[in-house]
């Protein structure tokens, strides 16, 4: 009977509490919902994009069992094909030319596959094209006039968009431009993929790949031991070819964007963490306010456990409702983000794909449980406090349970902060800075735990001052006298402010460093580039000489960028070819630290920061790169590079030409002679361009390039900005809810003050001062903690995820804005809540509780 009565009482109390203070519950619920929604949305988008990306990869690969791929886009010698085809255990081998081609349309890139239809039929039948004329004549058999026609090309549905069978398509790949007739559809290639399939001999001839192959797809004989066959095949390969399996392809596509995805996931979880602090602060306040109610219940025979359970049930309800709302919101956010930003959320990793949203119930469940756990953990401390209170004391004293004269302990906070600092020193786990994130979480927890102590330390000196204004004096005294209430209000502010500041400082440092780097990187007056040049395309020595002799050109430096695959499960490495010695090297990218001189007879190579990190290269080391067979190189220095996350190496142009014989270049930087305008020189250069490359050359001035690069940067950080904005809003909402709840809880106190002769105006002034003071302490602590956390992001998380370093640049304007907004919103909500609390008359207010 008693238990039943207690259960009923508990229900009333929960509902009554919620009805009396809906904003508090709603804010906590919304915080959880936003955390869950962001986490789920980021996860769903990432999962959808990744599955889309791996589908894209397997589409182009046609699901071959095993694949041999060339390390560089130039391919390997075609004589490898008969050698592999004859290996015992290989049932079929299909040679493939694989090129990236541009079309007449701006920004369109098509993967061109040159296939031997007769071989591909056995290994990768899904890649074969079907002549449209044969449709509907199934019994007749295909009238395959097209497979061997060097003019015919088959387009995937995605590439066919806006084109028709029978039309001519102009493709530029491998430095050559060729015209083809669209003969039909490669229907086996998935939707949205831009692929063109043609005969291998036509591809070799028309696109300048005679004697070379980029790929050999293999099918093993039935019953062949795959592990053994891998070794046999790998042993037969030259240095410029690699054995690739479905697994290693999947790992490669995963490692392409893993760091970026994990970072977004973590940022989303940080939002959930903020939600947890808001639940904590809401519950603490609610418990503090109801201490006499709980005491009464205890006196009436309700057990401690029942009280504990009640507060937990409140937390769980908030978590559950918030979590469920978060799931719906997250799904909506994810589909919106996919539509607006694409599968990589603007990160630029997956190209132009628009993946379908893949909903996984498991992920939804995981985030719901995370939301619930956050709410439970947030309610745990207040619940224990409620259960522990001595009924007799609590019944009498509705004020702060903590004695203001005793200084709060600092050691738990110190332990957490020290642990956080230690975690920041740990290395990455599997290429992911997990301990870096753990460090941030520990620092955050430590900072919040330190709040009561910090608040007292900061307010200590002021409380002894005797101020002339009664209202301000009262405000100071009250904050000093109710430390735990102040701390509770502060922890929400500090958690959201510090996360926000950490992210803002990191992004601004990153952007600033990129901007500096771009300025160093783009010292010339004019830049030109051949689009879609691929291998062996662009400017030949004759064209280079002609361009150099153009009037108005002071100096012109030619450059080339190509790529190299060093490991089957790593994204390719970029190779930058440019003069690194002599007068033309004046504008080369600056080296970090000291540059070594290579021992005589050794070829020097400069590696980018990400390449040094990824492959463990150090200056002074000898490395082997599969350039023109396999060549040893001497690492002389490391340079900063933000544009190629998967690494780049720079070779001197003379060394590259000596090794490969390739004299073609695809880019040039031009210094304009004094007294000439860039435009004038640009027109003069354009007139000198060889006619075949002229339509594909783009000119740009450094300012344009810089603006373009920063635009890409901002786009890829759009989601980060979005998360930042949401964190700020959640933080402000938390501050508002906390302050207004605390104010409304003090009706009795206000009534008492009115009886003592304090005017309404004075009380409002007191509240505004209190709010502003609270906000100011929160801002100081939050920004301080945020700066510490930003250093973890800058020096631990970023180098470990993206392998680049940056210098700290503080976003002063943003920090000032955040500080003002926080103080203003705390003071403003206190003002609003105060007016409401004061609207009741003084007599009733004093009687309100008892």
């Amino acid at each position, binding site marked *: 009977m008693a238990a039943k009565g207690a259960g009923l009482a508990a229900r009333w109390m929960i509902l009554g509490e919620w009805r009396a203070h809906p904003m508090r519950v709603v804010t906590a619920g919304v915080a959880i919902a936003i955390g869950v929604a962001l986490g789920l949305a980021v996860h769903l988008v990432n999962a959808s994009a990744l599955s889309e990306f791996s589908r894209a990869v397997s589409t182009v690969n046609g699901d071959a069992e095993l694949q041999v791929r060339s390390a560089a886009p130039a391919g390997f010698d075609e004589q490898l094909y008969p050698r592999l085809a004859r290996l015992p255990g290989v049932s079929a081998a299909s040679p493939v030319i694989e090129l990236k081609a541009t079309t007449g349309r701006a920004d369109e890139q098509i993967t061109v596959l040159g296939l031997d239809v007769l071989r591909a039929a056995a290994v990768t039948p899904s890649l074969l094209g079907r002549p449209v004329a044969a449709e509907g004549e199934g*019994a007749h058999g295909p009238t395959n006039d097209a497979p061997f026609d060097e003019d015919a090309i088959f387009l995937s549905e995605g590439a066919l968009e806006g084109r028709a069978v029978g039309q001519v398509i102009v493709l530029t790949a491998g430095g050559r431009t060729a015209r083809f007739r669209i003969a039909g559809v490669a229907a086996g290639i998935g939707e949205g993929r831009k692929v063109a399939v043609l005969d291998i001999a036509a591809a070799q001839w028309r696109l300048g790949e005679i004697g070379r192959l980029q790929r050999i797809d293999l099918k093993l004989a039935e019953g062949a031991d795959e592990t053994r066959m891998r070794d046999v095949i790998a042993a037969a390969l030259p240095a410029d070819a690699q054995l690739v399996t479905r697994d290693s392809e999947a790992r490669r596509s995963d490692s392409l964007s893993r760091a970026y995805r994990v970072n977004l996931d973590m940022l989303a979880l940080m939002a959930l963490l903020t939600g947890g602090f808001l639940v904590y602060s809401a519950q603490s306040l609610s418990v503090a306010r109801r201490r006499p109610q709980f005491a009464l219940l205890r006196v009436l025979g309700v057990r401690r456990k029942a009280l504990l359970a009640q507060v937990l049930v409140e937390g769980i309800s908030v978590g559950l409702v918030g979590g469920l709302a978060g799931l719906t919101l997250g799904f909506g956010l994810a589909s919106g983000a996919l539509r607006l930003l694409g599968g990589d959320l603007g990160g630029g990793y997956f190209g132009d794909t628009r993946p379908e949203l893949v909903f996984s119930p498991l992920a939804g469940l995981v985030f719901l449980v995370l939301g619930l756990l956050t709410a439970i953990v947030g309610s745990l401390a207040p619940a224990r406090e409620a259960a522990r209170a001595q009924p007799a004391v609590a019944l009498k004293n509705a004020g702060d349970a903590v004695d203001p004269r005793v200084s709060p302990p600092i050691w738990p906070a110190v332990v957490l902060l020290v642990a956080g600092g230690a975690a920041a020193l740990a290395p990455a786990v599997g290429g992911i800075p997990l301990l870096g994130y753990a460090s941030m979480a520990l620092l955050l927890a430590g900072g919040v735990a330190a709040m009561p102590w910090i608040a007292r330390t900061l307010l200590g000196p002021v409380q002894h001052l005797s101020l002339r204004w009664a209202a301000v004096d009262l405000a100071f005294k009250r904050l000093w006298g109710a430390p735990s209430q102040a701390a509770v209000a502060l922890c929400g502010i500090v958690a959201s402010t510090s996360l926000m500041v950490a992210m803002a400082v990191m992004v601004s440092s990153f952007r600033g460093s990129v901007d500096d780097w771009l300025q160093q990187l783009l010292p010339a007056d004019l830049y030109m580039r051949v689009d879609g040049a691929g291998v062996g395309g662009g400017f030949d020595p004759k064209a280079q000489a002609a361009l150099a002799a153009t009037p108005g050109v002071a100096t012109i430096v030619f450059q080339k960028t190509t790529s190299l695959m060093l490991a089957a499960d790593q994204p390719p490495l970029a190779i930058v070819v440019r003069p690194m010695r002599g007068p033309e090297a004046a504008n080369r990218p600056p080296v970090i630290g000291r540059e070594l001189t290579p021992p005589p007879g050794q070829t020097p190579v400069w590696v980018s920061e990400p390449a040094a990190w990824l492959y463990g290269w150090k200056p002074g080391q000898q490395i082997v790169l599969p350039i023109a067979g396999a060549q040893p190189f001497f690492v002389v220095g490391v340079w900063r590079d933000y544009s190629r996350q998967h690494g780049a190496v720079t070779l001197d142009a003379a060394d590259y030409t000596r090794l490969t014989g390739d004299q073609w270049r695809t880019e040039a930087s031009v210094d304009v002679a004094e007294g000439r305008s860039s435009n004038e020189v640009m027109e003069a250069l354009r007139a000198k361009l060889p006619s075949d490359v002229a339509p594909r050359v783009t000119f740009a001035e450094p300012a344009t390039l810089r603006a373009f690069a920063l635009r890409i940067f901002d786009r890829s950080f759009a989601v980060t900005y979005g998360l930042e904005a949401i964190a700020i809003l959640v933080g402000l909402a938390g501050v508002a809810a906390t302050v207004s709840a605390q104010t409304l809880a003090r009706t009795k106190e206000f009534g008492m003050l009115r009886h003592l002769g304090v005017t309404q105006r004075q009380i409002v002034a007191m509240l505004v001062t209190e709010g502003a003071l609270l906000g100011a302490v929160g801002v100081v602590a939050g920004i301080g903690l945020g700066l510490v956390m930003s250093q973890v992001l800058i020096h631990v998380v970023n180098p470990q995820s993206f392998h680049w370093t940056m210098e700290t640049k503080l976003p002063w304007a943003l920090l000032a804005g955040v500080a003002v907004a926080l103080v203003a919103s705390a003071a403003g909500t206190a003002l609003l809540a105060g007016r409401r609390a004061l609207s009741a008359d003084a007599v009733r207010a004093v009687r309100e509780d008892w």
Partner: protein
Amino acid sequence: MARFLALLAAMLVLASPAATQPKSAVRLPVFPAVEPGTALRFPADHGAHPEFRTEWWYVTGWLDAGDGQQIGFQVTFFRSRPSIDQRNPSAFAPKQILFAHAALSDPKLGKLLHDQRAARAGFGLAEAATGDADIVIDDWRFHRTADGRFKAKAGGKAFMLDLGFVPTQPILLQGEGGYSRKGPKPGQASHYYSIPQLKVSGTVTRNGKAVTVKGSAWLDREWSSTLLDPKAVGWDWVGLNLDDGGALMAFQVRDAAGQPLWAGGSLRGPDGTVTRFTPGMVRFGAERIWRSPRTGGRYPVERSLTIALPQGERRWNLKPLFDDQELDSRAAGGPIYWEGAVSTDGGRGYLELTGYVSPMKL
């Protein structure tokens, strides 16, 4: 006779001249015409004739596994020269395409076991040699050894044939000294010779079990650049090794109405005398129709063959080893046709029926 033409035609012949290239720049192959009076020379003519558009080495026959059970087999290698720009320097340029089919007709199975290979010539993986018969596609090969025997190796997962063929009779030149007309126009012709009554020995491997076999076979060799009349939709062909040592071959090319556009053939008696058939001498009759449940094709699998010989009319009734010897090679880019072991009173051989599901076009 003109077997598999559909396949060849379909895959290659229509290859249109490179439309996006300047017409003058494209160098298309020049296919030599089949001229009457060209003397065939051996062993050179056993080898490939890469200038011509199409060519085949076609072996059909009956095997005895020693248990009295008769099975039929066919092993066929084709060469084709696509109409592509001859300037392409690529080693992959499809200047010659090779195909091969093999099938086994076992009445206990009631349907064909078959397999195929196809590849463009090159890299030593697929080659058709000139000078003597030697044609290779991956692990399949048909060649003539120094002692004059032919050998064939073909098969796959379902079965494997490893057979040797010893000629017991001289080469039989079809038509006028190897010039065999296929249509009303003199240009519609092929170079054509046969070697009937080949003695077969070797092994047939099925389910991992190799069985030694003996039997008799028929080799057909043809090469041409222009074969069929545009009105032709299909053809019937039969080659029989007669028990008395004789050899009978007859064919007809049909139009859309099923009427013969052209016909021909020959009968070599046991004494070696050869009678060549003019179109008017050959009459194919349909005795029983079998309808394919898979494709709906209606094949006259039981036939009468009436030849108006100078010494009087002779009739052979052809009965299939079993009905379902239809081969659907659409998956490999080929046609649907019926190619089966048939027997008659005093003889055994192979019957081919094409163009019964849909017209064969050239």
